[in-house]
Structure formats: structure tokens, C-alpha cells
């Protein structure tokens, strides 16, 4: 994580880089959509669009949370495990026939609580985030088999109300509504709030932020708690889509969330990156599998395509940064007569 941190140090270069990445990605999205329009017009059937958007919603809500954490220069590999725990918790509550309004608060509270634990580990014990969350992944994922025997099923009918019946105009699923609300709030919040400025400052240089009067530990923990609550929302939406809830619903999801954030141009070293990039990143990732299906390609290859897109995209933006740097260096040389 130490690599590469030099370039993102200046806020100016970070913003510039973010912009170009978003533009690249946006063009990519349009190209994909056009190709689909030409060769697989079925893709735009209402059903398929809505199911693609449904998956996009889970992914983006979780990825916004991951984005907050990555901006502070931390990372969270326990997100998948947290989502699994949230799922089981919500299912437990759902089994008692409570009204569906309770699900979301419960999911958010569980997510926030577990993520708070991560935050404490990282700030108070100063364990690097990747290691701390690696450890808590095993704790969270390990607790589940003790309380659940594989899966929870025979859930009451109102359990899936949120996913199947709660639709705006009878078409747009509630998950999409949640996603839009969260994304809009996040974009405004990350642009204008003082808290967001603190997050960026910590990611750029935690020591400098501390000296400037930012309570680094408190801010990082808060960031983790907000992220946890968002995982909670994502987890609740994922599990209420079925009558049967298994304990591994979220496993492996953390890598997809990180991938969406990275693809969106957020530097893994922290301090730069925008939510809008993550929105586009998550959208591309959720497009891959259905797009391949409708193009008549086997979706078995979707993971490989996803990896290739991430790799190519980071390489392209890195080459842009490197040529920019070289240009600057030669300019400096030309300006400096002593070197000549």
C-alpha cells in the first residue's frame, strides 16, 4: 500500500486523475450499451433491465460504504462476512413475524455494530486495516455456524415484501429506490460536508490531518460505522429477495465491492476518489454477467472479463499518470539552466 502513494499526495492531481477515469468509464458504458442495442436488443426487456438494476443496487450501496473506508486509506475485507451476518440476523428477526419495517433498522444496526468493532481494532490497537479485517472476517463468518444450522427457511410471507411487492409504479423495485437515494445523498455529502473533507485529509496524510486538529481515530471509526450501516442496507436487500437465507450469502462479495471502488478511480492509497466514479464502476461490474448472457457468450467467463476490465482500466489510468509525470519532469529540466 506504500507504493504509488506519492502521486496521489497532491489534491489537484488526484481530482484530475479521477475525472479522466470517470470519462473513460462512462465512454465504456456507452459503448457496451450500444453494442447490446445492436446485437442483443432483448437485453433491454423490462424484466432484464430491472434485474440488472437490482444487482447494481446491492453492489453500489455496499460499494459506497467501501468507498468511504478506502478514501481514509483503509480497506475492509470483512464486508462480505458482515453482509452474511446481517442476512442471518434479519432472517432471525423475520422469523418472529414482525412487520417488515423492522428489517432495515436491524440490518443497519448489526452492520454498523460489526463495522464499529473493525474501526476500534484499527484505530485503538493500530493494526493495519487489511489484517484487522482479515481477522474479523473469520470471527464474523465463524460465529454463524454456531447459531444457525446451515440456513434459515420457512420464513413468513411478509419477509420478501420489500423485494417483490414494494415497487414504485409497480415497476421499479424498492432496492433501486434505496440505491438512488443513498447515491445522491452520498455524492452531495462527499462534496460539501466537513466530515467528508476530514476523510479525504486523513487519507492523504493522517499525521498532517491530526496536526491540523482532526480527531483521526474518531473520524475513521465514524466512517467505518457509516459503511457498516450501508452494508446492513445492502445485506437486508439481498436476503429479503428469497425465502431461504444461507450463511454464506455475502462471502466473496467484499472483493467485488473493492473492485467497484477501484474501477471507479478511487486510489487504494486513500485521499482521492469520487462516489460518481464508484457508481459507474459498480454499474459496469453489474452489467458484465447479464450482457454476456444476452450476447450468447457463456457467463462462466464473466469473472475473467471482470478481472481483465479492472486490470486494463487501472493500467490505462496509471500510464496516463506516468506520462503526465514525465512531461512535468522534462519541463522542470528545461526550466533549470544548471542541469543543461
Amino acid at each position, binding site marked *: 500500500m*506504500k*507504493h504509488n502513494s506519492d502521486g496521489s499526495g497532491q489534491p489537484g492531481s488526484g481530482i484530475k486523475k479521477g475525472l479522466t477515469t470517470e470519462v473513460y468509464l462512462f465512454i465504456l458504458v456507452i459503448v457496451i450499451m450500444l453494442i447490446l442495442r445492436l446485437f442483443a436488443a432483448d437485453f433491454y426487456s423490462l424484466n432484464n433491465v430491472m434485474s440488472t438494476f437490482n444487482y447494481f443496487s446491492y453492489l453500489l450501496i455496499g460499494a459506497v460504504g467501501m468507498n468511504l473506508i478506502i478514501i481514509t486509506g483503509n480497506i475492509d475485507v470483512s464486508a462480505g462476512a458482515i453482509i452474511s451476518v446481517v442476512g442471518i440476523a434479519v432472517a432471525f428477526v423475520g422469523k418472529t413475524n414482525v412487520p417488515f419495517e423492522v428489517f432495515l433498522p436491524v440490518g443497519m444496526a448489526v452492520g454498523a455494530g460489526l463495522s464499529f468493532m473493525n474501526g476500534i481494532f484499527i484505530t485503538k*490497537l493500530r493494526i493495519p486495516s487489511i489484517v484487522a479485517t*482479515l481477522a474479523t472476517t473469520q470471527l464474523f463468518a*465463524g460465529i454463524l455456524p454456531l447459531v444457525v444450522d446451515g440456513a434459515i427457511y420457512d420464513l413468513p410471507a411478509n419477509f420478501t415484501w420489500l423485494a417483490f411487492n414494494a415497487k414504485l409504479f409497480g415497476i421499479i423495485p424498492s432496492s433501486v429506490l434505496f440505491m438512488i437515494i443513498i447515491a445522491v445523498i452520498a455524492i452531495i455529502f462527499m462534496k460539501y460536508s466537513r466530515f467528508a473533507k476530514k476523510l479525504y485529509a486523513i487519507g492523504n496524510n493522517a499525521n498532517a490531518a491530526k496536526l491540523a486538529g482532526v480527531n483521526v481515530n474518531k473520524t475513521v471509526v465514524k466512517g467505518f460505522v457509516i459503511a457498516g450501516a450501508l452494508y446492513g442496507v445492502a445485506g437486508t436487500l439481498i436476503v429479503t429477495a428469497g425465502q431461504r437465507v444461507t450463511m454464506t450469502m455475502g462471502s466473496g462479495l467484499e472483493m467485488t465491492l473493492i473492485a467497484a471502488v477501484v474501477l471507479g478511480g478511487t486510489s487504494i*492509497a486513500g485521499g482521492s476518489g469520487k462516489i460518481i466514479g464508484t457508481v459507474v464502476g459498480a454499474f459496469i461490474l453489474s452489467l458484465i454477467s447479464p450482457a454476456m448472457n444476452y450476447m450468447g457468450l457463456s457467463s*462462466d467467463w464473466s469473472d475473467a472479463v471482470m478481472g481483465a476490465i479492472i486490470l486494463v482500466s487501472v493500467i490505462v489510468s496509471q500510464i496516463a499518470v506516468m506520462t503526465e509525470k514525465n512531461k512535468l519532469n522534462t519541463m522542470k529540466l528545461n526550466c533549470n539552466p544548471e542541469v543543461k
Partner: protein
Amino acid sequence: MKAKELNKKKSGLSFNSSLLLIFVVLFVSIGLMNNNFLNPNYIINVMLKNIIEIGLVALPLTLIIITSGIDLSVGSIMILSAISGGIAAASLGSVPGIIVGLAVGVACGLMNGLVVAKLKISPLVTTLATLFLFRGIAKGITSGDSVYSYDFTTFMGNQTLFGLPISIIIYAVVAVIFCVILSKTTLGRSLFAIGFNENATRYSGIKADKVLITIYTLCGLLCAIAAFIYLGRFTSVKFDVANTLNLRIITVVVLGGTSINGGIGDMKGTILATLIIGVLNSGLTVLNIPIDVQTIINGIVLVISLIVYSILIEKEKNKRILEVAAMKKT
């Protein structure tokens, strides 16, 4: 510099001895609770054999993490190598299987190394992308089906030599080689240097790019060797085991006291951590504790060791500050 060197050795020693202590306590207490555990047959054929693949890959991963890098794609490389080797062997025979398996492992590692060293993309991002890429290719070429063991992998996974499984002998030899690489060679020294300060290392004339490419490629090679043993032991392999392998291997390295921030690490720690995880996993099985509970116990052990380690580092730092202050006075 000398004082620093000395200090590092001291801290390494104290951490390793506490790991050794954990190992002995676990081993003895599980042995006392169930005598079957102390049966040499069980120790060799269950406890050690079950941890070989993870242990093998943890060795080169230790080198990578010392340079402040990471490789999240190790599990995916293993699976891709096992699957492509298995497919080649099924139609062409064992020898092409071996060649393809090794070549794929090395190529994957080389690719990671080139992207990290030449394009300066952070190892975390690089290997996150290749985690999907390699696993995805494995899924694509098999369409999600299993690939089966062939003569050579069966030999690697199950053959015994002088009463010891050949996989354990391979692990022992490789472990010794890696101990020597890290502590006795210039390559090992340059790894620590890169981990402390990569730019300074470049300016001091070490070809950091070459070193990084070497160790990532080495990691790919060992993934391929581990893949042979894995395929032989389980007789068939599917793409989806890649996920759990990645994190388990990183856990072993971290438990062994290698700092994820780079510059600090020890091969003996990784080996001890491998043994601890081995004892835990098979010991808990002997005690009839279900496999599910083992994850949480692994997690608790990791958390405790991290806390202990962070306290140790804090102490060490304070000591170092005092020592530097004393040196300045004289």
C-alpha cells in the same frame, strides 16, 4: 544501522519464541485431551499433510509481504494451474500436464510481478484484478466442472518416501531454501530494504524491479507446485475453492509476525504459524469440534496474536527511541 539490525533480531526472536510457546501449549493440551492426536501416524498423515499447500505458498508470500506488497491472487493461481495442468494431462498425458501446470503458475506470477514492478500499480489492486482474472479463466475453461487428478499429481499428493509423504519432504526442503534466501542472501536483504523504503533502495543501486518480478514469479511457481499436491490429495478440483485459499494463506503469513506494512518479517515465524494452524485445525477435529467452529477459533488466535504483536511493536519502538537518544549522547 548495527543497533537497528540487532534490535530487529531481538524482536523477531521474542515473537518467534512466543509463537513456539503457543504451538507447544496447543499441541500438548490437545494431546492430553485426546491421546490419538499424539499418534505419529496422525501427526504425519493428517495434521501435516493437510497444511502443506497453504504452507508452501505462505513461504514466497512472506517474501512479497516483506517488500510491503501483497498477493491476493495466490489461491486463483493455484486453481488455474491445477485446472490447466489437469486438462492438458487428460488429453496429452502426465508430462505435458506438468509442463502446462508449471508454465501457467510461473506466467501468472510473472504477470503480477511485471504489473507491480514496471507499471507501479499497487500490489493490492493488481492482484485483486488478477484474482478475478485467473479464477475467471479457470471457471471459463472448465465451464464450472471439476478437473481430475493424473499420475503425477497422484504421486505428489499421496506417495511416501522412507515412511514420510513426499509432499512433506518437498515442504521441508523448500522451507529450508526460503529460510536461506531470506536470511543469508543479498536478495533477502534487498527485500527488507524495499519494504522499508523502496525509493531509497532504488537509489542505492539495487534493481528493485528485478527483485520484485523475481519474487512474484517465484510465488507463481510455488503456487503451481502446491497445485500438484492439492489436486493429487483431493483427486478433483473446482474453480470455487480459490476464494477460501487466498485468505487462509495470508492469515498464516500475518500470524507468523510478518508486518503487512513491509520491512519486518521472518521465515521461521511463517513456518511456526503454519504448524499452529495445522495443529489447531486437526486438533479440533480430533476433539470432535465441528469444522464450522474452527474458523472462529482461527480468527480468535489471529486477533490475539495481532494484539500481542501491536503491543510488542509499540514497546520496541519506545526502546529504539531511547537507544537512539542514548547513542546521540555518546
